[in-house]
């Protein structure tokens, strides 16, 4: 079976579910809104990072991205939908690759848009305080934001396929992102730098001190996402549907 029709089918699945489309809208809005809020905080901080302030909302927007990835997969585990999908496309590896593409590409596109909006809003709110930020840094932040969000959505998608449940995936990932990472994350220069979110978010900072730079950080997040996708692919190929 050729890949293109399978991808078309998976893309239609996403487009025809209102909650998924709304999730992508929420990604832009939540990120921009929290970035604006962060910019309003005027307290003078020694290690104030104007770029990260403009992308601060990503910490919350990523919840929308992982929810999107997890839901797009978990829709297959409602009422035997997976059986219908796999009887239409019995090549399971190809099927899951199409699904991952149909998840990753839209999140990348919307993530880039999110980056642009967030940067624009953030700069507007910061005003004078963003003056030190260069165009190159801004561009790196926007691209990093898009790639980071797409990778997190794929990470969640792979995990949801492995766990065969969106609820299970989100109840692991959301507390992890909101609590564990916030708490452990402040201890910089440790293994915590290599957590999927910490590593990828280096790209959203003007300066960094840890072992990972913006692109190596995203590469580490990509390894996490790739591992989750491989685990998901292994699961769908090996297990009875």
């Amino acid at each position: 079976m050729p890949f293109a029709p399978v991808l078309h089918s998976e893309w239609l699945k996403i487009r025809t579910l209102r909650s998924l489309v709304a999730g992508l809208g929420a990604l832009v809005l939540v990120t921009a809104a929290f970035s604006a809020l962060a910019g309003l905080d005027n307290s003078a901080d020694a290690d104030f990072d104007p770029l990260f302030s403009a992308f601060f909302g990503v910490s919350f927007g990523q919840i929308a991205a992982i929810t999107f990835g997890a839901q797009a997969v978990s829709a297959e585990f409602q009422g035997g939908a997976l059986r219908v999908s796999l009887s239409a496309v019995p090549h399971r590896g190809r099927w899951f690759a199409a699904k991952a593409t149909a998840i990753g590409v839209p999140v990348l596109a919307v993530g880039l848009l999110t980056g642009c909006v967030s940067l624009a809003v953030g700069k507007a709110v910061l005003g004078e305080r963003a003056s030190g930020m260069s165009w190159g840094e801004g561009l790196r932040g926007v691209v990093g934001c898009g790639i980071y969000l797409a990778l997190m959505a794929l990470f969640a998608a792979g995990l949801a396929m492995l766990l065969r449940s969106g609820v299970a995936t989100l109840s692991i990932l959301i507390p992890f992102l909101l609590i564990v990472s916030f708490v452990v994350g402040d201890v910089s220069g440790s293994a915590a730098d290599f957590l999927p979110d910490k590593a990828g978010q280096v790209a959203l900072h003007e300066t960094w001190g840890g072992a990972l730079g913006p692109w190596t950080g995203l590469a580490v997040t990509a390894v996490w996402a790739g591992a989750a996708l491989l685990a998901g692919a292994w699961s769908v190929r090996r297990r009875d549907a």
Partner: protein
Amino acid sequence: MTSIDVQDLTKEYGATRAVDRLTFSVVPGRVTGFLGPNGAGKSTTMRLVLGLDRPTSGTATLGGRAYATLDEPLRHVGALLDAQAAHGSRTARDHLRVLAASNRLPERRVDEVLEEAGLASVARRRVRTYSLGMRQRLGIAAALLGDPPVVLLDEPSNGLDPEGIIWIRELMRRLAREGRTVLVSSHLMNETASFADHLVVLGRGRLLADTPMQEFIHARVDPRVRVRTTDGAALRDLLARHGYDAVEGEGERWIVSHARVDDIGRLTSGAGLPILELAAQEGTLEQAYLDLTATEAEFAAQSPTQPQEA
């Protein structure tokens, strides 16, 4: 010609053997009823045929090929497994468009099968708003999408209203007339009797019968004749003389076992006995099925260890 061939198929889930060395074929041009109590392994067998579950041993092929090797399988095989499979937030039309896209089926087919299933007027409504019967129709529409030569339906009449039951019956008969291979599982005997030509019966994962339906019934249920006469005593004596056993039933109707109307009619007419009513009582699939399962239960009770060939 595409037939379904199941060869020595076995599926174990942990310690339980859901399908136990099953061998049978489903041939084109007739409706094959797939019977057995709940948990007999009917649905598991269908999933194995569709390559959704991996067999522990044995094979299931369609026209000699494993399902997973079919290119654009919806053009070869259509299946209804679970009426709840369509996502509630999607419209019926979108559900079918998704399936059609993956197998490069024209969008025209989507509208055709919706029309055929009687869902054209509600095609743009969300599946969440559908009754079980409507979901069942949508599942059948999905099975017909690729105009496949092989159709597998798991309990298709579930939740259908009387009109729907007649529709599905006519549909299955037509599909068989068109030369397709039709396998339909059910645990409703009267329902199955109304559409099946051939039967494959399972019990605890094993094959109990694989025969034409009429043969199955005739082999297991004795033909009986119902007679009403003005003189019951004379009738009984007459029949007894000729070796028939007659029992009086309700409303002075006599039931004669092991008999056919042709014989009883001639006999009573020859004896000058006035007959008010004479009718054949055909055995029902239900009786035949119960007889089979009773034999099976007896067999199982006699041998405490599972009767399995080495």
